[in-house]
């Protein structure tokens, strides 16, 4: 009988929000073309750790399994990425899985990404079209602008950019690259432009762009290749002008 190939995993676990984290190792049977999600599913199927003890199965989040939902972000061998699009064969073993600790960790690899959704509310991440009467159709958008906007529309609020940013942490008020890139996205829409200044108020606010340190990790780790740093630089330009002119108008 040939020795079965195994995959070794080392998971940073946490039983509940207020308890201490601990590491636990697992050895699971290898199958070709496994991704990190299928490895975690294997643990779920047979929750036995490397010492052979039956344990609580590892908790993590996932939905789409094709890198569009943003739910399965975690630190894999240190770097933040999507578990679904990370192939086990391309990773060094033991595969180290950690939650994105920039966010509150709820259980094992599950984090609470609420701050990003709150941030979208703060920047008014929507196009205001509601009214008491029909406003008619909006202005046309050139296909070039549509192409540019499309990239920003693919943001899946996964949290990778916030987790890799050295300036997003508990000691800093930074709202993060995701919300700022979305500000650019909604500000470039002809109807979204109507609330542009309200969004720029957040950009020049305490949580805003002044917290960006130009490490540019965000654009490197973004699984959707969103030009985050371009949006940040454009917002710098807009924010500087807006801050100066709105002050001179006082």
């Amino acid at each position, binding site marked *: 009988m040939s020795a079965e190939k195994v995959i070794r995993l080392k998971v940073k676990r946490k039983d509940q929000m207020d308890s201490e984290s601990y590491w636990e190792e697992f050895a699971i049977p290898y199958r070709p073309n496994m991704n990190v999600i299928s490895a975690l599913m294997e643990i779920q199927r047979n929750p036995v750790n490397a010492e052979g003890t039956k344990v609580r199965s590892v908790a993590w989040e996932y939905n789409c399994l094709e890198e569009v939902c943003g739910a399965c972000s975690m630190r894999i061998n240190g770097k933040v990425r999507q578990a679904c699009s990370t192939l086990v064969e391309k990773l060094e073993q033991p595969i180290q899985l950690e939650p994105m600790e920039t966010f509150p960790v709820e259980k094992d690899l599950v984090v609470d990404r*609420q701050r990003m959704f709150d941030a979208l509310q703060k920047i008014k991440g929507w196009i205001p079209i509601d009214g008491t009467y029909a406003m008619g159709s909006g202005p046309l958008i050139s296909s070039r602008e549509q192409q540019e906007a499309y990239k920003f529309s693919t943001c899946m609020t996964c949290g990778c950019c916030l987790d*890799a940013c050295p300036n997003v942490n508990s000691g*800093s008020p930074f709202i993060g690259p995701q919300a700022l890139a979305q500000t650019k996205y909604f500000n470039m829409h002809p109807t979204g432009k109507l609330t542009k200044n309200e969004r720029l*108020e*957040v950009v020049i*606010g305490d949580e805003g762009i002044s917290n960006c340190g130009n*490490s540019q990790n965000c654009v490197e780790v973004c699984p959707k290749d969103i030009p985050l740093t371009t949006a940040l*630089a454009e917002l*710098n330009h807009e924010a500087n002008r807006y801050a100066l002119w709105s002050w001179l108008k006082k």
Partner: protein
Amino acid sequence: MRSNSLTADLQPINKNIRKRFVLSRLHSLAGIVPLGIFMVEHLLTNSTALLGREKYNEQIHLIQSIPFLPLLEIFLVAIPLIFHAGYGIYLSMISKSNTQTYKYERNRLFFFQRVTGITTLVFIIYHVWSFRLAPVFYGTEINFDLVNSHLENVFVFSFYVIGVVGAVFHFSNGIRTGLITWGVTKGPASQRIAQRICLLFFAVFGVLGVTSLFAFI
């Protein structure tokens, strides 16, 4: 309970909320306009040491004959410097460096910018004491021989090499990030070109600074 209404609570619009933004822009501006330009002028002045003792002493005399020099030094150098250093220390304290995990070029530059900020501050305090404040208190004349007497000590000389290279790096990289902060270089291509120009700037003034140091010994 979280409210799901479409109108999120608007932050009250007041000056305090903009304080961080204004301070960050002043921090960037102070680093480039008075401080960076002063550093370049200072490096050029010191490079006259390469032309010999007399030329250097002549240049020092010329600068010391600028009217209201102490006022210029206080308002164009000391105050911007204290602000830039103070806010810079605050900024480096609230960032959590992660170059061990994310070994990207710009992330390393981000880290070195903070490291060289600290080394430059330590260097400047020592440097200002030895060549600006101590001569005032003890009445020694500032000239080639004074610099020579300091730099002959190998430890002081090594400290100066680190200090000068660190300061030139901090300014060169500061121009690169300043161009982003002021919204000049927006896309990755222009940022890459700016980075190369800043690297060239670093090389030119780094070499000039270090060779000037050698000219004093």
